[in-house]
């Protein structure tokens, strides 16, 4: 079965710094989703990537899917305290449901 590995598990960055979170799949990705979660709350949909080489941006967050469609990265530019939370990647598991990585916890210090 497909597995998603996220790295790093946790990250502490100073406000204003850039950062990258990676998501690697054991199989080809047919749909890759990025979510953000505040502690104790639901998941907020950020972006969905489907094509090899695809890149999407929303405000200061950019997500990319590599050409081989086995790795995705989430890049935050000039981090702010509002970016703090848990970032999860999810993959379309043969059109049935999503499977998820274990998440990356981001803390932003001011």
């Amino acid at each position: 079965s497909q597995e998603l590995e996220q790295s790093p598990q946790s990250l502490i960055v100073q406000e204003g710094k850039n950062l990258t979170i990676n998501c690697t799949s054991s199989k080809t990705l047919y749909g890759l989703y990025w979510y953000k979660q505040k502690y104790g709350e639901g998941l907020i949909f950020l972006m969905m990537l489907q094509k090899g080489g695809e890149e999407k941006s929303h405000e200061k967050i950019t997500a990319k899917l590599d050409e081989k469609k086995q790795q995705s990265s989430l890049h935050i530019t000039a981090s702010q305290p509002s970016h703090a939370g848990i970032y999860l990647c999810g993959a379309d598991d043969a059109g049935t449901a999503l499977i998820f990585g274990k998440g990356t916890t981001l803390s932003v210090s001011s």
Partner: protein
Amino acid sequence: DVKVTQSSRYLVKRTGEKVFLECVQDMDHENMFWYRQDPGLGLRLIYFSYDVKMKEKGDIPEGYSVSREKKERFSLILESASTNQTSMYLCASWGLAGEQYFGPGTRLTVT
């Protein structure tokens, strides 16, 4: 805006009680899902449904059942709650464009 709502944000139940967690979506989505989220284990799929009265087991269905009598509503049932079912429960619905939207979650504690 897609809206997925869950009946309770926090719930405390006793061992052996029957527990109902309800989820409602307002976007006419066919597919709905129930996950649980635990520290170190991430999100795990319990059950999902592609249509009214239709259900499929996910990765961890034991101890749970579901009901989908109307398209917009997907209920998760714990027939006899146990302490190992203490968890965060998340409902989601899946739009035609592929995006999956989540509810705010229900933090269930079974004592």
